[in-house]
């Protein structure tokens, strides 16, 4: 069977859903193909007993509950999904704790620029002068990024403007977070607190690009974060609904076997049952890793992409424990929404320790009831703990040892949580589910169970990715969206790259039509 579409989208993850919704909104006849029976990829939820667990989202930035600067909401509105989602704004950024007793680390940081700076001043008196300057730099970087991303028609005089008006950006563009924070003369304590979010990007701050990190600080702390009431599954389903309302076709339980290539151009896909889909554009929400190693014949992969996929390092592998507790958050003393619990404030050390099961003690834990208490039945609460592994330790675990290994690691995370917070939860577990790299491999086909796309290493940070994406030509007809692309992984970046991919495809179709 052969079918013809304007565009075919491989994968209904965050990138694929936004791309599909945008293409349908633009009037393009679009087919979205998903191998699982649900939309969302990582952005989903599941029910155990009387609890509905969020599968992956901690907080969503890019919706801008504080400043109203909301590039994401703009996308959701334009594609027709915004009014289908109910958001709850958060007021807390994170509580930062370490297991190293000598560090005596317990900092609770709020969202909102002024509140954040004031709180830091409380913890580290005298810090506010320099932290204010840091926030000025963060805002100035944001202005540069806004300027660059709003360029529709590039003119040479713009380069002049960049060199005269955006010098701060240019100065720091190739530095790490640590290099810049130290240049400001910050104290160790200030750096520890400011670097709290490092685990969301999975890269130690001695290597992580400062613009990448500062952009994230901007969208969380200055702009504000939210959570969808119907879990991330509500966002995923809302996008799918918007897509089908605008005439899109979505096929679930359907796998793509091959991306069709003709004369170096992507021309459609072949499905597992042999059905051929011809399309002017193929939007690939499967990772380039899977596209090049699974969905394309090796002869069709250009040398430079072979090199690129070979040079990059797969990012963190995920592990999560989902707990339905039979006491309320108040009764248990779960007072905070987001807990970052690290073995130490030295995040390079945390990263190295996270390569092994025995030594990994990193966790980011959310008590959903602190976003909205009615997320679980009265007298209960929901706590979910996430850890990340650098390296590929889980590939050593056999099927036979699987259940014991995951239960033991989950227990260690629970013990660490109790030790760091002093809150006892172990006796109150009514429901538990544990997800491992194998779980993510099962549901999303992620290589080695990766949840963070490619590492944002020094040589592959987002600024470099974006710049080289502008310079390099990709495979004609093939547009990548999602966590392995220019904006690095995460909800907000994946939605954004989905939109970018769709817009690029529409532009190419219009050019072709002319």
């Amino acid at each position, binding site marked *: 069977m052969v079918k013809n579409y304007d565009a075919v989208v491989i994968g209904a993850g965050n990138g694929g859903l936004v791309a599909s919704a945008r293409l349908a909104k633009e009037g393009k006849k679009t087919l979205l193909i998903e191998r699982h029976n649900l939309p969302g990829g990582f952005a989903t939820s599941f029910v155990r007993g009387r609890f509905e667990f969020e599968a992956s989202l901690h907080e969503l930035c890019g919706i801008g509950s504080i400043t109203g600067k909301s590039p994401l909401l703009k996308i959701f509105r334009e594609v027709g999904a915004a009014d289908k989602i109910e958001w709850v704004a958060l007021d807390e950024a994170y509580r930062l704790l370490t297991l190293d007793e000598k560090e005596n680390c317990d900092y609770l940081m709020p969202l909102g620029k002024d509140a954040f700076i004031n709180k830091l001043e409380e913890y580290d008196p005298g810090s506010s002068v320099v932290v204010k300057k840091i926030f000025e730099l963060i805002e100035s970087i944001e202005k540069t990024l806004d300027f660059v991303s709003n360029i529709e028609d590039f003119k040479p005089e713009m380069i002049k403007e960049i060199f005269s008006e955006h010098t701060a950006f240019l100065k720091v563009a190739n530095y790490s977070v640590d290099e810049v924070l130290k240049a400001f003369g910050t104290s160790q304590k200030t750096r520890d607190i400011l670097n709290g979010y490092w685990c969301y990007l999975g890269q130690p701050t001695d290597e992580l690009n400062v613009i990448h990190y500062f952009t994230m600080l901007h969208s969380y702390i200055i702009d504000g974060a939210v959570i969808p009431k119907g879990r991330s*599954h509500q966002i995923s389903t809302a996008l799918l609904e918007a897509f089908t309302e605008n005439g899109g076709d979505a096929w679930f*339980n359907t796998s793509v076997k091959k991306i069709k290539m003709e004369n170096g151009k992507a021309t459609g896909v072949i499905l597992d049952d042999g059905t051929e889909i011809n399309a002017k554009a193929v939007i690939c929400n499967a990772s380039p890793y899977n596209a090049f190693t699974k969905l394309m014949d090796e002869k069709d992969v250009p040398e430079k992409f072979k090199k690129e996929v070979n040079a990059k390092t797969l990012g963190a592998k995920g592990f999560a424990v989902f707990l339905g507790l039979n006491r309320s958050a108040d009764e248990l003393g779960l007072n905070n929404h987001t807990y970052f619990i690290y073995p130490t404030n030295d995040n390079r050390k945390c990263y190295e320790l996270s390569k092994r099961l025995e030594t990994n003690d990193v966790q980011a834990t959310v008590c959903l009831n602190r976003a909205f208490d009615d997320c679980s039945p009265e007298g209960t609460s929901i706590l979910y703990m996430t850890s990340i592994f650098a390296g590929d330790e889980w590939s050593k675990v056999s099927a036979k040892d699987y259940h014991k290994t995951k239960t033991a690691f989950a227990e260690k995370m629970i013990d660490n949580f109790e030790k760091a917070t002093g809150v006892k939860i172990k006796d109150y577990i009514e429901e538990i589910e544990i997800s491992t790299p194998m779980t993510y491999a099962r549901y999303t086909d992620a290589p*080695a169970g990766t949840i963070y796309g490619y590492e944002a290493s020094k040589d592959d940070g987002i600024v470099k990715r974006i710049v080289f994406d502008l310079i390099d030509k990709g495979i004609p007809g093939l547009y990548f969206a999602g966590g392995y692309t220019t904006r690095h992984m995460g909800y907000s970046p994946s939605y954004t790259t989905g939109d970018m991919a769709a817009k690029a495809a529409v532009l190419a179709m219009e050019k072709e039509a002319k």
Partner: protein
Amino acid sequence: MSKKKFSVNGTFKDSVNTIKFLTERKKFIDSTEAVLPTRTDDFGVNKVAKSLHPKQQKLVISKIEEHGNLAKSYYFKGETELAYFKAGQYLTFKLGIGNSVVTRSYSIASSPASALNGEYQITVKRIADGFVSDYILDNWSVGDEVIAFAPEGNMTYCSLRDAENIVAIAGGSGITPFLSLARAIDQGDEDCALTLLYGCRTSDEILFKEELDSLSEKNEKINVVYVLSHSDEEGYEKGFVGADIIKKYAPSEVYSIFVCGPGGMYKFLETELPKLEKERKYIRFEVFSSGKKAEESKEFNITVINRGNESVIKANSNETVLCAFERAGIEVPARCHTGECGFCRSKLVSGKVYIPEGEDKRRIADMQFNFIHPCCSYPESDLVIRIN
């Protein structure tokens, strides 16, 4: 801000560093070979994920054991090792019966370790009007090839949630998940203690008695008590498994109750278990569908949309939407048939369905956007459903 004055390592070095940015990236890419890295399917993680959750498994019936006229045990061999599982999980089989395509789930009776040796065992009991069980009992023979999906199910022991002592209440063929658990304990693959309260009508109806007695004899972590409802025999408890019998045999330490059996047993336990005043976390049921109270049956049409193709099928108000699909030979990815697993989730484009209380285990957003689980939804009007 003082952006003109700010620098990291001095203006000159900063500029050099920014320029380096372009060369570093090229070096980084050029330093590697134009060879594809490890294929996704070749990572240990992906291999184990696939072995635990294969799309489907081809099984060959290697042995059939008859339990009088009551039931038969089927033993299966796989081509290689079979998907590993936790004691308490079930297998869903896909069968073509006449023009129907049906799926049915049976708890695995064999131990998890036996899966690694390429063997599974299930037990099928003969029940009144059992469309699929009759078919299996009358047709499956040694050497036949059957299709099963990966093991699923949540009635498994978890040391982080459950008490170390499990009091299992089994009725009839509901014994199989606990036989698997007892075997797993005996083989050292589960570290809980098991008190098994096994309810049957008469002693003749007890399945696996010899093996259960032997496990209970040799392993101090396993204790088996038979409870007969319809005969008074020496050496057996008399009556139904209720609060008194549980109290009599339960350990003095904290314990969890696991239940698997027929509907009548669940109904009885509904009034009995509250007498024990146990926290909800210590009581776990193998999910089971109570169905809908039969009423005068009405016939409706369901328009089924599958990958853009539409077909119209007949449905009956006393049967689930999934049942209508099965009868019409429409294949849907159903597993549990109790509303729990969510595999059959489909979009109700229009029309009205009835979902029995307690069986609606849908996600919040699925209710918002009118997605249903056809396995526990009964048509109340003509329907349009998008399954794919």
